[in-house]
Every structure is written in structure tokens, then in C-alpha cells.
């Protein structure tokens, strides 16, 4: 009798457990079979942590979540913290299911082995602008899709140019003359960002590339000539000496405040410009000789599928990334954020809807990615570039010697 008692309780406990397990199983079963209550939650990590972009992206993410029937758990971090976060998570094996990366970083992260190539999920990557595919390609495999891209252009204050009777400049000479005429007591003719960071290097690229310079050989006369243009603009006083300390956000602030008549900046600034009182317009970045095709760098973010070990989730994440780059999604994001769709077939339709984006859209067709040629050497290349720019703009080295001197550091 005494020995039976424990058995009895044990049996009861086991029976109770069985019920619990059964309940749990049916609960799971319910989740997967019934529609609406989605069982799968994808974690998403991106750096659109400020409005308006945070909520604009949220809308696009929500649409795709609804479309492929998943829940999303989104985390946003400041732009400069993203890579650190990604590396930390890679080492603790807690990468998100969907990861957004700035396009020049894709190859570096793909190199870690932490991303899965989209060919694993039969994602169709045709029809996209070549530049953004180049940026997302590492060792022959495409690792991510960018729904939209941005690039640089020359913005000008319509009122100020009309007042001075000046046409928006198309060549470097016109740029210098226009900037000089537009410079008055408390106003500069032009502003750009030459800060000691990737931003400075990125802003220099359209001048360098359009002039035939190349990141694989920074000590060429073409590149030095482009740098000389910047040096001339600053030394002649038509651009502030402060450009060596300005981010692109600062440049935009100067333009909005009316402190500069023209600026080199990206189309992603348009939502803020729209909200200001400034009447602005834009053209492509001026080139050295009339008739040359301007070559600008391609900006924008790429959505990737990290290797998390859960293959079902990875497949769903790939579906999600594909959805973000679908035609409807691209148009929606492009219109909301003033960036250009990456499906070349959409560009004409987009310009028809957003005529103010014409110069940028045109520029995207010929735009190049920063990592297309130098791949994961881009960080080192960019460092040399902005170091050289700083040396030349502060008079520590001539434009011809600056790149050589910077490369030695």
C-alpha cells in the first residue's frame, strides 16, 4: 500500500503533464493552421532611427509583414552603431532574421560568413540597377536587395540664382564663377562636406569619378585635379573653411538657413527641404568638361538575410526581403523618402510622379557603387581619401601630394 501511493501520485503527475503537453501541441497546431494568428516573428535590425525615415520605413515593413503573413520585431540603432552591433551579435550568434546594411558595408559583412546568399532561396535579382547589385555582391553571390538608392546632386536656391541672373552650373568653371557671384558678405556660394569621415570621401567621389579618377589609383592627375577644384573653392572664399568639419546634415542646415546659395547633397535631404521655406531645385553634379557624363556614387541600404540557423525563418526572411524590393514596395518607399527605385524599369514612371527627382534619377543610371572595384578595401581607401582631402584643404599638402602623403599614414 505504502509503496503504491507514490506510484499513484506519479501517475497523476504524468497524466497532468500529458494533458499540458497535449494542450501545448494543439495550441501550436492551432497557430500554424489557422490564418491570421501568425506563428512566425522575424526580428529586423536597421538604422533608420530618426523620423521621418523611421516611420516611413515602418510603413513599408508593415506592408510586407502583412503580405507574407509574419510578425516583425524591429530594432533601430544610430547609423554609426550598426556595424558594431552586427559584429557583437555575430559573435554571440544572435543576428536578426532581417538585417539592413549600408551598401558599402555589405561585402565586409558577407565576408564574415554571417549572411546567406539570396540564390539559396531562388530570389530573382534581375532588373536591378547594376551598381546596387555590385555593392551587394561578394565572391559572385548576391547577398541583399536594396529597394531604393540615393545619390548626390547639386541643390541650388532658386531665388538667389534668379536674383543674380545665374543659370545652374554644369561645368567646374561655371560652378566656380557662379559660386563667386553668389558669395556676398554673410553668404557663401557653395557648401559641401569634406569632413574626416566616410561622408567626406563620398562627397568627393562624383568630382573624382566624373573627371576620370579611380579609387584603385588615387595618385592620378585626374584625382588631384578634382581635389584642386575643392581647394580653389575654399581658398577663394566662395566655400567656407568649415566644410572640413561639416557633415552633410550641417551642409543642409547651412542651405536651409540661407547661408549658402548652392550645396552638394543627397536626395534623402529633400523631405527636410520640403518642410523648409527655401525654394530649391537640383541638377547633376557639375563636371570638368562640358558633355562628360557625371558619375556619382550610389548610396542606399541593402536588406540581407543573416544565417541564424533556423532555416524556415531564413526562407521567410528571404521572402520578406524580396517583398521589400517588389515593384509596389519600391515605388512606395521611393516616393516617401525621395530616393530612386532600383528596378530600372520603374525609373521613368517614378520621374513622371516626382519630377523634382529627375536629376537624381538620371544620375542613378550611371552611378557606381563604392565597393564595386575595391571591395572590402573600401574602408582603407575611404580613409586615405578623406585624410588627403583634409591635408589639402588645410594647406598641409598640395592637391598633387595630398594622396601620396595620406597613403603613408
Amino acid at each position, binding site marked *: 500500500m505504502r509503496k503504491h501511493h507514490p506510484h499513484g501520485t506519479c501517475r497523476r503527475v504524468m497524466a497532468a503533464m500529458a494533458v499540458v503537453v497535449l494542450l501545448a501541441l494543439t495550441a501550436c497546431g492551432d497557430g500554424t493552421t489557422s490564418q491570421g494568428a501568425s506563428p512566425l516573428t522575424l526580428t529586423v535590425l536597421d538604422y533608420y532611427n530618426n523620423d521621418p525615415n523611421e516611420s516611413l520605413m515602418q510603413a513599408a515593413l508593415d506592408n510586407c509583414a502583412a503580405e507574407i503573413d509574419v510578425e516583425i520585431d524591429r530594432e533601430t540603432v544610430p547609423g554609426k552603431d550598426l556595424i558594431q552591433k552586427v559584429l557583437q551579435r555575430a*559573435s554571440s550568434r544572435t543576428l536578426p532574421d532581417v538585417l539592413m546594411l549600408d551598401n558599402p558595408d555589405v561585402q565586409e559583412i558577407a565576408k564574415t*560568413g554571417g549572411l546567406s546568399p539570396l540564390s539559396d532561396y531562388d530570389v530573382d535579382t534581375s532588373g536591378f540597377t547594376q551598381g546596387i547589385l555590385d555593392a551587394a555582391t561578394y565572391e559572385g553571390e548576391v547577398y541583399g536587395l536594396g529597394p531604393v538608392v540615393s545619390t548626390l546632386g547639386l541643390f541650388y536656391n532658386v531665388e538667389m540664382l534668379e536674383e543674380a541672373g545665374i543659370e545652374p552650373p554644369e561645368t567646374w568653371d561655371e560652378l566656380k564663377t557662379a559660386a563667386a557671384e553668389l558669395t556676398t558678405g554673410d553668404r557663401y556660394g557653395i557648401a559641401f562636406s569634406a569632413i*574626416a569621415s566616410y561622408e567626406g570621401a563620398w562627397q568627393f567621389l562624383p568630382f573624382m569619378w566624373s573627371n576620370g579618377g579611380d579609387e584603385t589609383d588615387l595618385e592620378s592627375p585626374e584625382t588631384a585635379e578634382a581635389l584642386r577644384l575643392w581647394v580653389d573653392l575654399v581658398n577663394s572664399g566662395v566655400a567656407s573653411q568649415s566644410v572640413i568639419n561639416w557633415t552633410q546634415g550641417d551642409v543642409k542646415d547651412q542651405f536651409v*538657413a540661407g547661408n549658402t546659395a548652392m550645396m552638394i547633397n543627397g536626395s534623402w535631404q529633400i523631405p527636410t527641404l520640403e518642410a523648409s521655406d527655401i525654394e530649391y531645385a537640383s541638377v547633376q553634379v557639375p563636371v570638368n568638361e562640358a558633355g562628360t557624363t557625371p558619375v556619382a556614387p550610389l548610396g542606399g541600404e541593402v536588406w540581407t538575410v543573416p544565417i541564424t540557423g533556423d532555416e524556415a525563418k531564413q526562407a521567410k526572411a528571404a521572402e520578406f526581403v524580396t517583398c521589400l524590393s517588389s515593384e509596389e514596395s519600391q515605388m512606395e518607399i521611393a516616393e516617401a523618402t525621395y530616393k530612386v527605385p532600383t528596378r530600372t524599369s520603374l525609373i521613368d514612371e517614378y520621374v513622371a510622379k516626382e519630377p523634382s527627382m529627375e536629376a537624381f534619377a538620371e544620375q542613378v543610371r550611371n552611378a557606381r557603387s563604392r565597393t564595386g572595384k575595391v571591395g572590402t578595401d573600401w*574602408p582603407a581607401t575611404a580613409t586615405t581619401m578623406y585624410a588627403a582631402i583634409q591635408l589639402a584643404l*588645410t594647406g598641409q599638402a598640395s592637391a598633387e601630394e595630398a594622396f601620396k602623403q595620406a597613403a603613408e599614414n
Partner: protein
Amino acid sequence: MTTTNRPAISVPTEAPSRRRLRFRSGDIVKLMFVAPAAIYVALFFGYPVVKNVIMGFQEYTTQTFFTGEAPWVGLSNYVTAISSQLFVPALWNTAIFTFGSIAGQFTIGLALAVFFQRKFPLSGFMQAILLLPWLLPLIVASATWRSIMDLDGGVLNQALGVVGLDAIPWLTDPSFALMAVILVNIWVGIPFNLTVLYGGLQEIPEDQYEAAALDGATGWKAFWHITLPNLRGVIAVVLILGVVYTLKVIDIILGLTNGGPANATQTLAIRAYESSFVDFEFGIGAAFSNILILISLVFALIYLRGIRRSAN
């Protein structure tokens, strides 16, 4: 007496077992109080330092984070770090930045501490205001100072203009930039110096000043012969901690100049940051920060020796 007692006192086999017994009963409780702190220090200070020292000898790339593979490269990271053209300027900038910051923070902090020793209307309120820089996130402080020091529209240059002086290119001229970041760092560091030194001043017995006043020592004399000697211990703490804090400053410099213009504000801490998180050369970044740790260690040892001497 002694011969009969001796075996009872020191039985060599019994002593250790008794100690072990006492350790089990009483010391375990004491240990449990120490354990959380010890584990915390080991995890959050010990582990990163050891890891960083090891990283300095490895080729540590972005790949390593995912695969865990980091081949040993001996001293090559240190060779790269030290042979870089920027190493000597960075070392020099670190020294100027640290010395300049500490000198300014300490002098102003001490002056303010002495000033606030007297009670006057609103002194408490003013002291609280002076602590503000301490509460402000450094990234906010540097962004604010960046706009204050702006060449064309900055308040600082406008103020200079009012007095009839020319605008100073604080952050855009390589010959001014280091001074500008030092000035901001002094501003950031004053509250710490003020608070600790003010605390030290409260410890000085009032009757010492009274006695000295009877001998005719007031004002500067009292400061020199009573205040300073009494503060010696506190001053040592403030200076050494100040040096260790200042050596590793990066936020303020990144926020103000990003290491520019033309590398004028590159310090060893900035080199460490840039090697790791801009160029993704984590091994070289670790080498730079290990050199910094070594320098800090020298000051820490001076500090510990000072403490031991004052305890004796």
C-alpha cells in the same frame, strides 16, 4: 611553564585543519559579500582587458566575429601601430591633450572649490549649475560646442567680434583644433575636480585656520600653508584619476573634429577607435589601446604607491 605549554599551542597538524574549519563557517559568509563584486570586476573589467591584450597579438577581422578564428601574428600589430606615420603625432597629441586638460580642469576646479567654501546667497544653486556639464551626455556636449565654435555663425566668434577681435578658426585650422578640444574637455572635467576637491576642503579642521589667523596667516598664506598640505591626498586622487580618464577620451574629439582637421586631433584613443571601427583592423586597434592601458597602468601604480605611503 613554557615547555609544557608549547605542544598545546602549536600542534602542526592541527593548525591548518582548524583554520580550514573556521574558513568554512565564518569566512564563507564574508566571501559571499565580496563575491558579487569580484565576479563583476572579473567579468566586466578583467575579461575585456585580457581579451584586448590577446587581440593585440591576433589578426582579428570582421570574419573572426562569426567564425571565431583569429590567427596569431606575434608583434606585427604593434609594429604596424608604432611604425605608422601618425603614431608619434598621436602620442604627442595625447600628451598635450591630457596635460592641458588636467591643468585647466584642476586649476579652475580648485579655484571654484575654494570660492564655494564661503557661504553666500545662492552659492548652493550656483554649485548645482556648475555640475551640469557632468550630467550632459558627451555627445550632446560636443555637438553643442561644435556649433558654439563654428567659424562663421558660432556664438564664440560673434562674441570675439563684439570685442573687436578676429574670428578664430577653432575647429577648422590644424593649429587651433587641439586647443579647442582641450578647452571643451576642461569644461567637461571641471565638475569632477570641483566636487572632489570641495569634499576634501570640508575635511580640513576649521581651528587650523583660526590658529593660523592668530599667527597672521590669512588669504594666500593660509591657502599655501594649510589648505594645500591638507588637500595633498585628495589632489593626488584627482590628478591620477583625471589622467586615466583623459587618456581614453574619444567622444568629445569624435564629436568636435572626428580626429581632423588634417589629423590635428588624432590621439592614441582615436587611433584605437578608427583602426577598429572605421578600418575594421581590430588587432591593430587592440594594439593601440593596449599601449594606452600600459600608460594608464604607470599612473595607476604611482597612485597605488601614493596611497600606500599615506596609509603608512
